[in-house]
């Protein structure tokens, strides 16, 4: 066999000294890649805009995540007039960039006239510190603003394994649902959480505690999914929020945004749109947009795919009728997806407020999809630090 010949040829080359040389090479490599991986542990800055009236840490609501990588920033935008309270949760899945970026755009641009908006831009903070193995994701992507380029982190789907290890073979969540082992690090399978459970379950518990303690009326969880996933460009609503979602969807359609409504399945446990509503009575809605960088059909996984969202394999799949969203040559650009999310949030707040005027939440300066198409998303983000 040829490998035997190779072995014989190289047999004499290996000795203690080559072993020591290799140990040195391993040490140098570990050192260099450690610098690269550790750079991901730093959070790219978020610049609170004129509407931000306060800031807290999620651990203020549940000390069980204090000092852990799961603890994360909470931003408050409070109007002068009293009204209702809404939550916008971004970054549940850090590989769904429109989710976190929509929340960041809200923090940096929106102003609340009446009621209160609570925004978490990096719900799974730990997940932003690493990408998923074998996906080939870039660690960062960039958005141009009129005065410079902003950098954002593309992360993995769940809690970084160095913060919660090992995964069980089968994960049985708090509601008794059996899931594949790695789902133990998926926040959106861990609700309503467990104060004594895995780190991700404690994070879920902290979020539910916050909803309870702040008396949040309407809770919106931002997500993305691959274009071949059936539930996409859609809202998934708890039964306490289906009417709200349907009315918002109809009005959005009049504004040129196609969005479906799916009722939250009663037997699919551990997800935000089910457990938030069941545990606290908050009106719970999850929103999905189409992210080709997450999909299994995608070609090269580059920063351009994340930001511009153009992929020829998805264009081909759409031509063959295999997708659940339209996917043309213009692809599914990130700023378009953020625009959809923000306009949907805006519409949900409007419909919620008109149904319950005492609990009005009035938000201004929230860019619409049209404004983002016209000016680019960067126009609504803070300028980068000089």
């Amino acid at each position, binding site marked *: 066999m040829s490998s035997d010949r190779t072995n014989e040829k190289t*047999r004499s080359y290996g*000795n203690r000294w080559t072993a020591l040389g*290799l140990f040195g090479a391993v040490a140098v490599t570990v050192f260099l890649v450690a610098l690269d991986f*550790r750079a991901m542990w730093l959070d790219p800055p978020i610049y609170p805009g004129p509407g931000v009236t306060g800031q807290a840490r999620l651990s203020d609501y549940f000390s069980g995540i204090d000092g852990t990588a799961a603890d994360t920033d909470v931003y408050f935008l409070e109007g002068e007039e009293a009204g209702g309270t809404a939550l916008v949760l971004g970054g549940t899945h850090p590989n769904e960039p429109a989710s976190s970026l929509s929340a960041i755009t809200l923090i940096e641009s929106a102003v609340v006239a009446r009621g209160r908006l609570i925004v978490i831009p990096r719900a799974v903070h730990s997940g932003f510190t690493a990408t998923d193995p074998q996906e080939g994701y870039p660690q960062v992507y960039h958005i141009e603003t009129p005065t410079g380029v902003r950098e954002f982190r593309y992360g993995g789907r769940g809690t970084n394994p*160095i913060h919660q290890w*090992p995964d069980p073979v089968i994960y049985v969540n708090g509601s008794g649902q059996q899931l594949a082992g790695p789902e133990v690090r998926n926040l959106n399978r861990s609700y309503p959480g467990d104060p004594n459970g895995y780190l991700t379950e404690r994070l879920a518990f902290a979020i539910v505690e916050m909803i309870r303690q702040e008396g949040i009326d309407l809770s919106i969880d931002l997500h993305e999914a691959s274009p071949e996933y059936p539930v996409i460009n859609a809202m998934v609503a708890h039964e306490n929020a289906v009417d709200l979602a349907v009315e918002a969807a109809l009005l959005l359609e009049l504004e040129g945004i196609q969005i479906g409504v799916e009722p939250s399945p009663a037997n699919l446990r551990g997800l935000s749109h089910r457990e938030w509503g069941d545990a606290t009575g908050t009106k719970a809605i999850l929103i999905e947009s189409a992210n080709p960088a997450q999909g299994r059909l995608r070609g090269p996984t580059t920063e351009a795919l994340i930001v511009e969202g153009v992929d020829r394999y998805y264009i081909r799949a759409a031509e063959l009728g295999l997708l659940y969203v339209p996917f043309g040559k213009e692809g599914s650009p990130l700023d378009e997806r953020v625009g959809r999310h923000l306009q949907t949030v805006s519409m949900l707040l409007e419909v919620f407020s008109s149904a319950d005027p005492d609990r009005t939440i009035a938000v201004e300066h929230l860019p619409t999809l049209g404004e983002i198409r016209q000016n680019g998303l960067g126009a609504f983000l803070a300028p980068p630090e000089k």
Partner: protein
Amino acid sequence: MTLIYQGITLIVVLLIGWHILRERRLTDQMEAALVLLPLILRLLMIK
């Protein structure tokens, strides 16, 4: 639980290191060195 898994990783790292020292085929030494990389990164909780 994490500590037990770190302990297992440490043992595997030491065994592979020992194998590299004893091995006389350079290609095998190099393969084993590659295997060491992810194990050390997890042992140190870097990746």
